């Protein structure tokens, strides 16, 4: 039995992108029926909440959108879609003002009462607006209150399973859900659907995103036939906590500021090693530090748990305790003394630059389907600047809201679903109940390790091929492994199975895209092709699924605003 419902606008995900979209639809047309579905509780799941550093915006005196734009393009190694990036940096200004003036976020100020902008690596201006080092809590709590305050329907702990096409197969008719609390299926028909499930590279041994994210949105899009771009671009953060395999805390971030103020990275022999890789030492950019750490680990100079150390004691434990109170407490919860002792760290998978190919107005090649936030590709290119992530989800979430209501005003209407496709998707989700229960945890552990080793920070052709074989093997095993059908209500083990399925699907896409890119740019490093290649002829990868097969291709980056070697900054500005 599948419960049938309908709505005008269906939003998948309640992060910055999803909630902003809901608010903007409501503002554009309060008469529309809006539904936000989320795998966790509204606003309490996903990564927008986890933002620590802050939000990039060119609002400060002396800064300019051109400068923000150039930082974004250069950070992205000339791969970003320039129209998307330009929209990001220009709209961010209005968005921050909206967050402050209408939503109620209360960002930190300078003593003169104006917004404080802090320094973030890889940027030529201190433009990151923040609330302490828990900026995400401030942003998402305020958004969530505004959504609760409006007649917006919430489907909490509703897991989207599949986008269901209409009879033509060219438009989306609705979404199949699992009501996790009851274990029942539910189909929601909608005029417009927004995909905002937040990507998230959770298939790596060490990863930062929240546990509810398992690239479901990307997997659904792939299955629907949508093109995914830049999927080889997985950002790693240098300092994830390494507290062993037995704790979910492993992989979560400890702050970059620690290296910024002069923290040391040490290898297993307690020696500093960063200067052997880069003259900036610990203060090099995220990708370089991560890569150097990984190389050091591969060389076997690790701590007992297989990682490295961060050491702050030389800065004075009292100082560290005062300046990084939250981090010191967090480490203490894993049993580490950050202020005076050594904390084991590893690079950790953080963010997906890649995602669904979309237009500046968030529309996709499928009628009725829109995409925003980390699920969307093209904004960041080969690397995301710290502080551009939440800007991306809020800017484009809002735009999606406006686009969807405009399109509905122009006549976008509900389409009737392809019932066969729906039935097939239900069968796909129920599959594990027909199999004998098995060792899901073993499968997950293998996936985490294989992605970490062969599709991680340093890649090469043999490794990627090895990974593809292993992924195919894992998929076969997963499909043969069941879940006991004793109680479907709030069944997290069933959820684990479904998560693994999405993760394996998208892991394959990573590996294919990484094989395709035979050069090294930003987050993607091929030891067999270490050079960045010619910038002027840059191409981006595209992976899509047709007839159950992955098609891998690439396309030239269009330099619509600025070409490699040029800048938008005026003479003096550029010289600074």
């Amino acid at each position: 039995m599948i419960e049938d419902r309908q709505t005008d606008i269906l939003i998948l995900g309640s992060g910055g992108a999803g909630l902003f979209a809901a608010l903007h639809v409501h503002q554009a047309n309060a008469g529309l029926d809006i539904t936000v579905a989320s795998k966790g509780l509204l606003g309490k799941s996903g990564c927008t909440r986890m933002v620590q550093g802050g939000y990039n915006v060119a609002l400060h005196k002396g800064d300019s959108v051109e400068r923000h734009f150039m930082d974004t393009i250069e950070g992205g190694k000339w791969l970003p879609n320039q129209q998307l990036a330009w929209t990001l940096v220009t709209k961010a200004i209005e968005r921050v003002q909206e967050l402050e003036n209408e939503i109620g976020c209360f960002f930190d100020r300078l003593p003169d009462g104006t917004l404080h902008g802090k320094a973030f690596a890889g940027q030529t201006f201190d433009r990151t607006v923040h609330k302490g080092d828990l900026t995400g809590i401030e942003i998402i709590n305020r958004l969530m209150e505004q959504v609760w305050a409006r007649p917006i329907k919430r489907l909490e702990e509703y897991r989207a399973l599949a986008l269901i096409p209409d009879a033509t197969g060219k438009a989306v008719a609705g979404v199949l859900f699992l009501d996790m609390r009851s274990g029942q299926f539910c189909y929601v028909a909608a005029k417009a659907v927004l995909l905002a499930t937040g990507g998230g590279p959770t298939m790596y041994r060490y990863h930062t995103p929240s546990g509810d994210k398992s690239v479901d949105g990307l997997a659904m899009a792939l299955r629907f036939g949508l093109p995914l771009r830049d999927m080889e671009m997985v950002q790693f953060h240098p300092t994830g906590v390494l507290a062993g395999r037995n704790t979910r805390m492993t992989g979560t971030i400890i702050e970059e500021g620690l290296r910024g103020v002069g923290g040391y990275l040490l290898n297993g022999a307690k020696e500093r090693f960063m200067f052997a890789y880069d003259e900036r030492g610990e203060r090099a950019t995220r990708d370089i530090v991560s890569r150097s750490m990984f190389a050091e680990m591969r060389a076997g100079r690790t701590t007992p748990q297989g990682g490295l150390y961060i050491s702050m004691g030389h800065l004075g434990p009292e100082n560290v305790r005062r300046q990084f109170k939250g981090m010191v407490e967090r480490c203490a919860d894993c049993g580490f003394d950050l202020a005076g002792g050594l904390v084991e760290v590893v690079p950790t998978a953080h963010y997906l630059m890649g995602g669904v190919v979309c237009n500046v107005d968030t529309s996709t090649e499928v009628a009725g389907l829109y995409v925003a936030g980390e699920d969307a590709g093209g904004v960041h290119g080969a690397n995301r600047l710290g502080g551009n992530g939440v800007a991306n989800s809020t800017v484009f979430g809002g735009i999606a809201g406006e686009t969807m209501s405009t399109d509905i005003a122009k006549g976008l209407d509900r389409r009737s679903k392809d019932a066969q496709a729906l039935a097939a998707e239900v069968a796909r989700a129920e599959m594990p109940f027909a199999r004998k229960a098995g060792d899901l945890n073993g499968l997950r552990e293998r996936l985490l390790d294989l992605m970490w080793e062969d599709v991680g920070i340093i890649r090469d052709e043999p490794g990627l091929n090895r990974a593809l074989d292993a992924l195919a093997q894992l998929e076969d095993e997963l499909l043969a492994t069941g879940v006991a059908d004793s109680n479907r209500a709030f069944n997290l083990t069933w959820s684990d199975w479904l998560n693994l399925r999405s993760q394996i699907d998208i892991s394959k896409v990573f590996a294919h895209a990484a094989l395709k890119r035979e050069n090294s740019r930003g987050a993607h490093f091929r030891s067999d092709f270490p050079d960045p290649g010619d910038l002027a002829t840059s191409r981006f990868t595209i992976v899509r699924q047709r007839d159950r097969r992955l098609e891998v291709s690439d396309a030239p980056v269009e330099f619509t605003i600025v070409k490699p070697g040029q800048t938008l900054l005026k003479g003096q500005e550029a010289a600074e």
Partner: protein
Amino acid sequence: MSDVIAVSIWRGRGEGRYVDYEVPRLDSQTVLDVVTYVQRHLDPTLSYRFACRVGVCGSCAMTVNGRPRWTCRTHVEKVVADGRVEIGPLANLPVVKDLATDMTRFFEKWQQAKGAFTPSKTRHDKVAHIMPASPARVEVDKAIECINCGVCYAACDSVRWNPDYLGPAALNRAWTLVNDERDAGNKARLAAVAAAGGCHSCHTHQSCEQHCPQAINPTASIAGLKQRTLGAYWSGALT
């Protein structure tokens, strides 16, 4: 020190019982890890909720040995007593299943306390100048980092005894807005928190501030509201 922990976990909905499990003691193990271990290795149907696993989403709160806590940031060694831990759902909220509660009422009350910002400007205006050292802003900063975990709500006997009471978290949020000079809704907000079930239903048990994992002090925020509403009443702004 024994190498297993005797774990008792609540199974069921409103009606239910504690079921015993044995979980190996492991390094760096949090209470959430213990619960995860049971689901992964001992009983795949165990239900619980978590998301961020680092103390920012407020999804994972449970009752651990009689006290509400965030479980992802609670090291088991800190709570294990005589080799045992008892893990139940949060109190004062209906149980969805096992360790997961339905937080709807909690958020409805947040709205009832007018816990959403009321704008006085638009996105086309400049961001307000606010002095970071101004007393009102200092008050806001003290109370703003709430993760809406519901721990205080579960610890408060006034909530338990008076289901209409809005509770510490909602009132704490209202207090931050009362001190927000950009907000235009404070007349209605003060009326809302002064109504039956509002701040005057707090009997200063202080369990909220004792248990808040973010070291927020809702007792102080509620006291602030009590003063502010009285002031408004004297001056005739509240009737």
